[in-house]
């Protein structure tokens, strides 16, 4: 796997998002999943069943934290209580890295609970990078930022989304959680070539990848995480793996969640792309020895 400093040099393989409807199956059948991604906010509580279930999962599996409300791009200072709770959870899970989104979502203390897109401006680059650094310093583990699906573009934007991503991660010196489904969704909604995006990402900074399904409407695509991954998204994934090497990969399925076996079977399709690249890498390493 593409172990690098942004994923703490961990060789995680293919994982899926940990979801409540699957708990029973996981505890009863102990499936051989490489790792689970948890939504940090679901476990940033003081006690009760959520933390108990998490502890049971961690007895057998590796978990990696993924957040949905850090809002690196919000113009105002982060909520200190949020950060304290996040760090407490990091100490509990020993997550090797954590991720959240390159977006904003709160203003004047009110939360949208959505992943709102940023204007791709130099001001946003500076502020977002500074905030990622602040969070990274606080949690004391590598942070990776995820590109989001978006449905609107701002008149104020001064660069493409991938240029914006590259500028932010370079200045923050952080990793990337590359969501190839989000690239596809945004490419259809905004009319760009998704392969241009994948080809522009700094491969050495990619800590993790996300794959997922979405819903197509007449005039746009919505990132719903309630369908299997479509072929054009697998093609983007194949190219991303070709560029970045075998990278920890996670399937997200958040709505109309099917059986555990169905979700896991969909995630394991990623191995078709990971294994040949891993074998090639090993061959090259052997030849150089």
């Amino acid at each position: 796997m593409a172990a690098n400093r942004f994923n703490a040099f961990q060789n995680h393989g293919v994982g899926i998002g940990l979801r409540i409807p699957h708990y029973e199956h996981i505890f009863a059948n102990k499936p051989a999943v490489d790792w689970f991604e948890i939504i940090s906010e679901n476990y940033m509580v003081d006690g009760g069943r959520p933390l108990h279930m998490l502890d049971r999962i961690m007895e057998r599996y590796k978990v990696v934290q993924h957040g949905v409300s850090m809002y690196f791009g919000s113009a105002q200072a982060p909520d200190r209580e949020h950060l304290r709770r996040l760090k407490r959870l990091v100490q509990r899970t020993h997550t090797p890295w954590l991720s959240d989104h390159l977006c904003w979502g709160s203003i004047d203390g009110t939360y949208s609970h959505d992943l709102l897109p940023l204007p791709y401006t130099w001001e946003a680059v500076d502020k977002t990078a500074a905030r990622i650094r602040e969070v990274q310093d606080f949690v004391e583990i590598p942070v990776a930022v995820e590109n989001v699906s978006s449905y609107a573009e701002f008149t104020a934007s001064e660069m493409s989304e991938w240029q914006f991503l590259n500028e932010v991660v370079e200045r923050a010196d952080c990793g990337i959680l590359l969501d190839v489904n989000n690239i596809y969704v945004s490419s259809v909604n905004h009319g760009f070539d998704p392969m241009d995006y994948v080809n522009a990402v700094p491969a050495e900074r990619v800590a993790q990848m996300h794959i997922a399904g979405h819903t197509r409407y007449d005039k746009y695509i919505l990132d719903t995480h309630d369908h299997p991954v479509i072929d054009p998204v697998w093609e983007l994934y194949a190219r991303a793996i070709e560029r970045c090497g075998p990278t920890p990969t996670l399937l997200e399925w958040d709505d109309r969640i099917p059986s555990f076996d169905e979700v896991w079977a969909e995630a394991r399709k990623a191995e078709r792309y990971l294994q040949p690249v891993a074998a090639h890498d090993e061959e090259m390493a052997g030849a150089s020895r």
Partner: protein
Amino acid sequence: MNLEELQREMGAAVMQPLTSDESMQPSDTTGHWQGRAMEKVAGEFIRPNSRLTAFERLEIYNRQYWFRLQSSFMEDFAGLRSVVGDARFEAIMNAYLAAHPSRSFTLRNLGSKLLEWLRSHPDYAGRRLSLALDVVRVEWACIEAFDNVELPPLTVDEVASLGAESRLGLQPHVQLLALSYPADDLVLDMHRRERRESSEAGVKAESVDSDRHQSLRLRKRATWVAVHRVDFSLYYKRLSQAEYRTLAALLQGMMLHESLETGFEGSRLAAGSRVRLVGQWFTNWAELGWICRHSSDSESAKGSERP
């Protein structure tokens, strides 16, 4: 427009209430833009594309915001819906969420001000206000009891050795309720139905038909309940009035003898019977792990550990 100003503009647009057919308002209804057309407002910061206008692109976020909050609210207050009916519930939900948008990184706290809000806006609940308030009390107590912290409990022996001047703490997950109706029965009935729906679907129920949510017919009857947690599951324990008042007094920080005096105020129970009853209560509370150190004891214990 700098980043903060842009986010304030978009935030105001995204959180503006939807029309009755769940579209974005054609004109500003909040006063933020002095009633201007939202098409003009959206065009000032959103770029259109060949398929969608700036208004339509902003509307996607406006709708998603409301759908997400409404979905969370409906999940938390299904009992309230069954009491007031779909139309009133929708009005309560939209007015409450407009008045109290989320101020927390988690949607868990979305309904934290609902009881207070409904009390000050009684017309929304109609003639079933009193029952609606009770159901909100129970449903919010469930949220608190579900994931509040559990402190180290006092053992049965420790509880037995307490003196009259002791001050005690209650587990933060224990939620004491004094109700006008046995509203816990209604919420329990709802949860039973939800569990059945969940197991049949294999996943969490998404939406519920109103006719399946006819609530139990309840008669007014003073009811005291503790919503609490045992082995990570929620339970409702009915209390006598004296037991409730004693626990509430302990929670307020009164000494043990003061709490018992408060609990039995006006009671005609003979002294011997009170002693037996109090013994049973404390044994039961200790077995359930409800009793813990008073916060001042915990603080001083922590303080004494410091070098």
